[in-house]
C-alpha cells in the first residue's frame, strides 16, 4: 500500500458512466449501526462511571434512602490521610526506579536482538511472567518467601540462618521485595516492546556505522538508543499507568499493603477503602483524584515527548 488512508478518504468516488456506479456509503447514519454495540457498553461501563464517581465523591450515598450532599469534605480528608500518602509515596518510588525498569528490558532485548547464544530460549522464557496472572505471581512469591518457605530453607541449608526472615512482613524488606517482584514481572513485557522497536530499525544503519569504525558501545549510544526513543516514550507512559492503576492484583496477593502500609499502593487502597472499609464515597473521591493525576501525567508526558520531537 503506497497510498495513505487520508488520501483515500479525501478522494471522491469515481463515477463510472456504465451502470452500477460504485458508491461508497458514508455518513453517520450508515456508521451508527456498527458502532451502537460498542457505544452502548462503553458509555454505560466506562464513561458513566467517570461522571458518577464525581457525584459519589461529593455525596454520602446510603444503601437505602436519599443521598446527602457532603461537598468537598472527602477531598479535604485526603490531605491528612497518612495511608493515602504512603500509597502515593510508594507509587512514586516505584516510578523512580526507572533506571531499573528501563535498563533491564533494554538489556535483555538488545542481547536477544544480538542473537546471543541461546536467544530463542531466552525469548520464550522471559515472556513467561507476561502470560501468568499477577495473582499467580503474587501467590507464588508469597509461598516462596514465607517464613518456612523455600528461600529461607535454602538460606538455612547454606548455613546463612541469620539472613532468614519473614521477607514480606519485615518492615525493612517488604518494599524492596515488592519492587524486585514487580520488576521481575514486567521485564518480559518491556523486552517485547524494545525487541519490536529494535526490529523496526534498519540493520543497514548499524552496518554503515560499523564500517565507519563505530564500536558496539558507540553504535548503542548513538544509533540504537536514539532510534528507540518512541519505545522509551511508550514504555514510560505504560509503566506510569501500570503503577497507578495496575498493581492491585500483584500487591493484593503479595502483601495486601502491609506491613504498616510499607507496600500500600493507590489502586489497592481504593479497593480496601471501598470494599473492606465500606467507605464508597471516600474511595470514589480518591479515584477522581487519581484519575485526574493519571490524565495530567499522560498529557504532560505526551507534551514533553512531542516537544522533544521538534527539538531533534
Amino acid at each position, binding site marked *: *500500500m503506497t497510498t495513505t488512508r487520508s488520501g483515500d478518504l479525501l478522494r471522491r468516488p469515481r463515477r463510472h458512466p456504465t451502470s*452500477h456506479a460504485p*458508491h*461508497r*456509503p458514508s455518513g453517520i447514519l450508515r*456508521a*451508527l449501526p456498527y458502532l451502537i*454495540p*460498542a*457505544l452502548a*457498553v462503553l458509555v454505560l*461501563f*466506562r464513561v458513566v*462511571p467517570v461522571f458518577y*464517581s464525581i457525584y*459519589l465523591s461529593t455525596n454520602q450515598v446510603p444503601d437505602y434512602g436519599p443521598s446527602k450532599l457532603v461537598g468537598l469534605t472527602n477531598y479535604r480528608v485526603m490531605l491528612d490521610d497518612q495511608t493515602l500518602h504512603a500509597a502515593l509515596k510508594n507509587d512514586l518510588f516505584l516510578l523512580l526506579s526507572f533506571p531499573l525498569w528501563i535498563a533491564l528490558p533494554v538489556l*535483555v532485548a538488545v542481547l*536477544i536482538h*544480538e542473537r*546471543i*547464544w*541461546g536467544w530463542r*530460549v*531466552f*525469548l*520464550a522464557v522471559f515472556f*513467561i511472567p507476561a*502470560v*501468568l*496472572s*499477577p*495473582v*499467580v505471581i503474587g*501467590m*507464588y512469591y508469597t*509461598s516462596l518467601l514465607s517464613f518456612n*518457605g*523455600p528461600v529461607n*530453607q535454602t538460606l538455612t541449608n547454606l548455613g546463612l540462618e541469620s539472613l532468614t526472615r519473614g521477607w514480606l512482613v519485615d518492615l525493612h524488606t517488604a518494599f524492596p521485595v515488592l519492587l524486585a517482584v514487580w520488576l521481575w514481572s514486567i521485564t*518480559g513485557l518491556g523486552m517485547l*516492546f524494545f525487541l*519490536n522497536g529494535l*526490529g*523496526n530499525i*534498519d*540493520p*543497514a544503519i548499524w*552496518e554503515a556505522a560499523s564500517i565507519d569504525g563505530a*564500536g*558496539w558501545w558507540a553504535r548503542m549510544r548513538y544509533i540504537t538508543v536514539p532510534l528507540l526513543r*518512541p*519505545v522509551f516514550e511508550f514504555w514510560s507512559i505504560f509503566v506510569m499507568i501500570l503503577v497507578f*492503576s495496575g498493581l492491585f*492484583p500483584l500487591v493484593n496477593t503479595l502483601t495486601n499493603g502491609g506491613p504498616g502500609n510499607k507496600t500500600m499502593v*493507590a*489502586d489497592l487502597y*481504593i479497593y480496601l477503602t471501598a*470494599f473492606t472499609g465500606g467507605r464508597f464515597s471516600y474511595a470514589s473521591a480518591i*479515584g477522581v483524584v487519581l*484519575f485526574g493525576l493519571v490524565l495530567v501525567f499522560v498529557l504532560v508526558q505526551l507534551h514533553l515527548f512531542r516537544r522533544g520531537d521538534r527539538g531533534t
Partner: protein
Amino acid sequence: MSVIGRTRPESGGTGHIEPESPAPARTRRGGGRRRVRWTLIPAWFLLVLGAASMVLPVLFILLTSFRTPKDYARDPASVPREWTLDNVRQAWTVGHFNEYAVNSLWVVAVATLLVVVVSALAAFPLVFIPFRGSQAALTAVIALMILPASIMVVPTFKVVLQLQLQSTYTGLILVYVALSCPFGIYILSNSYRAIPLELMDAAYLDGASQFKAFVTIIIPLAAPSLRTLTVLTALSLWNELLFSLVIMQAPEMRTLTAGVALINSNPQLSGVDNTPVLAAALGLTSVLPFVLYLIFNSSISRGMTAGALK
C-alpha cells in the same frame, strides 16, 4: 544523528499486527562482533540467572502441587520424595475450583466472543465509512484504552448494582467487554487500514450491500488480527482479578483467579502449611494461560506490542 534518523523515519508497524515477528533479523552484522562476544559473557550469565528465575514458578507449581504437604514441610527447597494427586483433588473439590473453572470458562468465552464481535463491528465504520466525528471517535477509543478502568472500580460497581447485575455472569461479561473493546477497536482499525479501499469498491460494484461487503471481504482479510485479538483478550480476562472480585461477590460465582486470591479465606484449606494445595490451585488457574502461551506464543507477543502507541 538526524541524518540517520531520516533514512528510515518513524518506522511504521506499530499498529499492524500481521507482519514482523519480534524475532531479530537473521543476518548477522560484522565489524567488532568478535570482541563483543567476549564481553557478553557476564551478561550471558545474568540472562541465564534471570531465565532460571522465570522458569522457576512453572517448576515450583509442577513439583509442589504433586508432593505431600508433609514432604513439603520437611524441606520446601528439596526435590520431592512423596508424590500425590491429593492436592489437586483437594483444590478441585474442597476448594471449589471445579465451580470456579466453570465460571471462568463461561465468562471468558462469552466475553471474548463479544469483544471480538463488538470491536470488529465498531472498527469498520471508523475506517471504511467516512462520517463526521470519525476522528473524534477514534481519539475517544484511544483515550479509553489508555485511561485506567481499575481506578473507576467503585462507580463501575455501583452501575452494576443499579442494573442489579452483581454476582451474575451478565454483569461481569459486560464489564469485561467494556474493559477490552477499546484495545480491540484500536488494533482492528489498524489492521483494517491495510486493506485497500478498492476491494470494497469492487464489492459495491457487484451490488453487495455494505454489511455483506464487511462480512465477505473485511472479516476474512482481518482474520489473523481477529485471532490475535481473541487469544490476547481471553488471556487478559482470564487473569483479571479486580472486577471479578468486586462483581462476583457470591462465593459460588467466583472465577479461578479470584478463587486463588481468596484461597486463604477457606478454613478447610488454610492448614498449617497449605502450600502444596495452593500450588495445585495455581496450577489449575495457569493451565489455560500456559496452553495459550505454548500454542500462540508469537501471536501473543505480536498482539501485546501492537497496542504500542506512538
